[in-house]
Structures are given as C-alpha cells and as structure tokens.
C-alpha cells in the first residue's frame, strides 16, 4: 500500500481543467487547499513505482501544472487481496 500526499502549483486560469484531468487518473484524486494557485493531490498505488510515475511524469504532463511536490508518503506491504478489495488496484496489474 502506497499513499502519497502532494500538491501541485497550477496556472490559476486552468485550475478547473487541471482538477478534472487529475481526477480522471486511476488512483489519483484532488482536494481543495483554499488557494487558487494550488491543488491538493492524493495518490494511491499498489507500489512506489506506479506512484512515483504519477508524481514525476503523469501529473507534470497535465497542461496548467507548473510543478508537483510531495509532502507525505506511506509505503507498507499489504496483501494483494486486501488492496484489490479496497482499491481495485492489483500490484501485478500495475507493474504491467
């Protein structure tokens, strides 16, 4: 189980479309930070590789995102069946 809390600095005029695009990514959700220049991001993944890819590649490719900075990570082993039941994310599938 990997959970990462992060925030993105975004172009103010694109904040809505940025949030929509990020929310459409599997295992990624946004939340409000009360600051129009920033978007809170929660990344859930089966393993760090996928989370890291989201953080350093996928999110940065969203138009309107100026940069992404993590502030929290939790990385603990978790049985695959528990993970699937909770999130629908399979480590084996994610690695592919």
């Amino acid at each position, binding site marked *: 189980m990997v959970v990462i809390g*992060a925030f993105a600095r975004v172009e103010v005029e694109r904040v809505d479309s940025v949030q929509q695009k990020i929310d459409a990514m599997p295992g990624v959700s946004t939340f409000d930070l*009360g600051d129009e220049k920033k978007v809170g991001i929660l990344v859930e993944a089966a393993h760090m590789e996928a989370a890291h*890819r989201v953080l350093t590649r996928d999110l940065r490719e969203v138009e309107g995102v100026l940069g992404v900075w993590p502030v*929290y*990570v939790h990385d603990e082993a978790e049985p695959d069946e528990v993970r699937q039941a909770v999130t629908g994310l399979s480590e084996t599938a994610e690695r592919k």
Partner: protein
Amino acid sequence: METTRRDFIKAAAMTAVVSVAGGPAMAKAFQSADKITWHKSVCRFCGTGCGVIIGERGGRLVALRGDPEHPTTKGLVCAKALFLPKIVHSKDRLLHPMVRKGDTYERIGWDDAMNLMADKFAAAIKAHGPNSVAYYGSGQAMSEESYLANRLFKGGIGTNNVEGNPRLCMASAVGGYVSTYGKDEPMGSYDDIEHAKVFFLIGSNTAECHPVIFSQILARKQANRDVLIIVCDPRKSPICSKADVHLDPIPGYDLAVFHAMAHVIVKEKRYDEKFIEKNVQFKIVKDGAPAKVDFKGYEAFLEQFAPEKVEMSTGVKAEQIVEAARLFAHGPTTSFWTMGLNQRITGVWANNLIHNLHLLTGQIGKPGATPFSLTGQPNACGGVRDTGTLCHILPYGRAVKKAEHRAEMEKLWGAKPGTIQPKPGLNTIEMFRALGRDEVQAMLVLTTNPGHSLPNVTPYRKAMGETRANKPFVAVIDAYPTRTTELADLVLPAAMWSEKYGVFGMSERRYQYQPKVKDAPGEARSDFDIVLDLAERLEERGVVPEGYIKGKFTTTDDVWNEMREASKNTAYDFMGMTRARLKKERGIRWPAPTEDHPGTCRRFVKGDDPCLDSGPYADDTVAEGDIKFYAAPDFRATVWLRPAKPPAEPPCKDYPIVLSTGRVLEHWHTGTMTMRAEELRRAQPECYVEVNPEDAKAYGLRTGDRVRITSRRGESVVKARVVDTPRPGMIFVPWHWEDDPSLINRVCIDAYDPGSKQPEFKVCAVKIAKV
C-alpha cells in the same frame, strides 16, 4: 479493519498536504497514527536540508513526510526523499566487515578488522612518517564524525592528508567566498527567496537537483508577476522553461559574460557608488601577487568585455547580456549557483565574478539580495567545510598555514605544539596520485565512492585496487557495496541515516540535529564508532599520543561540545547551540553565540550578525542595518579583476565536442542510495547522452543509438537521446551509473583549479561515434 487503516493514512496524507500547502492545519491525525512513532529529522540527500518527519513502526521506517514546522523548507520534500525508508532497508546493505583475499572477500570479526587497519596505519607511519597515511571523507558523514577524523589525523597522527568529496563539488565556492569576503559560507539565507525580485541561476539545474528551492522560487514568481528569473547555462535544463532570460555561453567561456554584465552596469552607472566607497576594494593579480587598483582601473579593465565583443567569444547575444545586467542591477537579486560554476579550472574566479556583480550593485546584505552557493551534499558545509576537514584548513575558518590557528587547535585538542604541520596536505587528486605511486601507504575512505566519483577515474581505480608489490592498504567504510568497496582491502559496514545521531549543516549555515530512529542492520557501526575505535588502537600502537582521544569521547554529544568550544570567538561562533536546543528546534543558523540567540539570517549586517555586537569582531560604530565585512582585509570585500581564461581542454580537430556531466531528478550522485530504490532505478534505468539535433544529424545519430564517447583518457558507451537541451557542439551525460561502459568519469578530465584544487568535470573535449 484494513479499510479503516487505509482511510486513516489517506487522511493523514491530506492533513500533511493541507498543513504545508493550504490554510490552517487540520487535526494532526498523523501524530496518533496506529503504532507509528514520528521523529523530527533532516533529509539525507542534497544540501537544501529539508526538514522531515520519519514514521517508524516495529523497527522499520514506514513513512516520511515534510516537516511543516521547518522554518525554511516548510514541509516540502522532493520525490527522492520519499524513497529514503526503502533505501535504508535495502536488501544489499553491508552487514559484516570483510577482508580481501585474492579476488574475493571473506567475512572477518570487528576486532580483527580494526586490528588489521590499525596495524597497517601504524606500520606505514613508523616506516615512512605521518604523511604516508591519508583520510578521504565525505559531505555525508555527520559533522561530529568528520571533526573527529580531522582531529585524529591532523592533531594526533600529524598529517594534513585529510580530504573529502566536497573538494569535487564545493571547493571553488569556498575559494570564492574566502578570497572575496575573508571567510567561507554564504552571508544570506533561504529567507532571501521571499524578498528577491530577480533570481540569477548560474550553472544550476535547480529544478532537478534542488527541487524544494526551485519550488520556493516558483512560488515567489507565481505570486509576484514582476519577479524574474535569469538563467546562465549552456544546457537548457528544466528551469529554462521558467526563465525570462536565458544566457547560454559556450561551455567554459562564461567568465567573459559576467565581466560583460559588469561592463554594462558600470557604463550605464547602475552601480551603488556609496556602497562601493564604503565596503569594496578592487584587486588584480600582478606578478603572482594581488595588487590594488582603483575604480577607474577596473573600468578600463572591463573595456575588453563590451557585450558586442563578448558575443563573439561566448556565443551569448549582446542584447541578452545587457538585459540580464539591467535586471540584476535593479534587484533585489539573489544568485544561486552550483557545479556549473564550481567544477572548473576557473571555478574560484567564476565565483569571484558573481560576487563582483553583487558588490558593484550593492545587492548584498539586504532582504532578497545575496550571492548564494547551493550545496549538493547534506553536510558538505557543516561537516567538512566548517570543521576544516580538508587538507589546507582547520576548524571554523582557521588555516593550517597560520601559526596562531595551528596553536589554537593544538591547545584545544591537547596536541603537542608543532604536531599540526604548517604545509597543506595532499589535495584529493594529488592524494590519489600519491596512492598510485605507493607514496601514501594506508588510506581510510569514509562514506564516499571515489572509485566512481573521481574524474579520469581509471588510474585512480588502479591506485586503489590493482594488485602489486608494496600495494597501499585501503579501508572503505560504507553502507552498500560500491565501485570503491570492490577495490578495498578492508570493507567496514556503516550505519546509515536514521541509524545514528548527530548534526548536519546545510547550505544556509543551519545546523540541524538528526536522531537515531532504528538500529543498524547486522554488525554495521557508525562512522563515529569506527573512527573512535581506530584512534584508540593507534594510541595503543604508539603512533598517536596516549590519551589524545581515548577517554575523551564516548558519544557524538561529547564531540559536539568540543566543536562548540572550537567555534567560540570565531566568525562561526555556535556556542549557543547546545545539544538540548538542537534536539528541540528545527535547526539554528550560525553565528549563534549564546543559548538565547535565535541564529543569524544575514551575516556581516549590524543588528542581525551577533559577531558585530560582541567578541573579536564587535564594532559599536556600525549603524543598524549596515554591512561590515569584518573578516576581510581592511574590512572591504574584493572585486577581483580576473582574466577570462579558457577551459583546460577546449575542443579541437580530433576531439571536436564538449562533454559536460550532471544530474537527473531520480538519482543522486553515484547512485549508491537511489539505485537501491527499484522504482527510481526503473524510472531512469540506464545512462544516456543528450545530443543536439544539429550534431546528431552530422554524426548520423538517432535516439536509442549507442554512442561511443572518447576522450584522451578513456571511453564510455551509452544510448543517445537527440534533444535540443545541450548547445550544438556540446553533449551532456548524467554521471550516476556505475556500470561499465557507462561510467562517464573514465572520460572526464582531472585538471583542477589551481586555487581551489577542484577538478573540471564540466568541460572536456571528446569525439563521438555511433557504435
């Protein structure tokens, strides 16, 4: 049950984000996370010194978050830091001492290992004198560990053959500060980011190498549309996409650009006449000695650097130079630089010229106005530069050449007068050359990887590892197997970050305490334990005076207290940084001479720097807010008239391309840590070379082709990436990969700056060919 736990962790993650990036913090849910104990600490990677909170459960590190209460990094960390728990728990950690037996290594007990090392060192000293042994340390060891090793070698054994890897990355910055202001280390702080209106980023891939600093710059620019960024770099690193002006000089020719900026500032009278009159002097080196010149002499010197002339020699357009100069002078301007400036045979001079711009314009010592060298390692500043763990210096601004400084340290250390030699020891390159000539007969390498990180590394690898008659003895302390442990005669397993406690000192003079959170695996011991043990055994063998170290130190706390004493009444004075205080606070910036002093935001500024209020530098005549460069000759900082000397190895007919090396976001230095995180390794799985499309066309290269890069010293074969980031005529290779044939340091040049002794990693001539 598990769902609840996952939801809880998600809430904790969101809370952490809100507390860092949002409004008032929500409930601190993470503080009561089930069975997780949280510890305030400091990141293990670069010199930014990000405050982190480590989550430990059942002896394992399971979580990490930025520390929102950290006064300068404010909860931010970069993607590398997220992997620290995983890196610490890497399965290939070294667990036992091992001794080389022919081509293999055999496990050995600690007592036998330490006796072997002590015997080898003692035998060398008795047979060939103290200069037959050497220490090569690291900006990644704790400050107390470096200080103790320095104390042992210089004051105990009596050799100045004491070096460390900061020689490869920051020595030119030290030379720049010392020759300009009289003392090392930045006078400003990260607080200046929040006040600057112009950022001048020189030879610094800040976005990838210091991402948290870059975040703060970006936040400042985002909030203030009049904040501008000037970048000077021959490569379009990721920061260039945010730059307002990009100066891209031919590699190695930027000194003329800085002089040209000064030319514009002087011609257009954008300098601060009052500041110069009061605080600045001008000097040129004539017949090998510094000589004063006046402002008119400086003005005349700059004539050769008119922007139109400089455009021809540097490739930077004159109008861009003019624009950059005008913006710089407007300010408030903060300059940040790293290896692009330092890793050069003109590194000290390049540093001087950045300081020149700040001194001319008075962009110094005011909020948002400072010249600031960023550091690449977590403790290059506090651990090596400040403790004087290099061949030419002693703790806290002292020099081995100065008799009074040697006497002060001998007295504090309890060494016999005359023990510390007056001549600097061997610098890093010369130390490894001497090892190759078998003149250094025993060497201790601590927490660093010279078998990968030295330039022109092939002969130095032979020096360390090649079997021969009278081969020197090399002991290596590390947490992981590396390209250096494979060359060692003795390998000692080290405790890592969070497995020992001590102090890291980062770029802005902030000393921060990091706790021990878990036990080291196997039989690994801290560098402190190992150096202390070696010292005691050398005393037993009669090559270090009895009682010089034995009995004086039990823990790093004891060493810290002596370090505070050593700093007393120096420009570094941190007597007020007690251990108890450091454990409680989020680091303190020196000088902080008393326990109630909050630390210093800006040095040399009356009302902020306590050295101007009491102690040897005190001066009641200086007005509040005014500057006094109290460590400089005549209390004046120096504007240096330096020649625009070309690199050691410019391109030529046979080697027509310039090679520059650097870093990527995912990896750090020789990759001994980041390559242990599979995710980071897979994200950047192999070495590559960036080739400009123009050059790619000329050489028939496409992305994915294998390219042989050959210099006068060696070759490397890596895959091509055809991108327009490097200038035409220049290639860029990140140096993190250790495997042959990727190891790019076999190609790099080991010519070094005659002042700082820092090698020129950033420029050498190569030829390239499709394989």
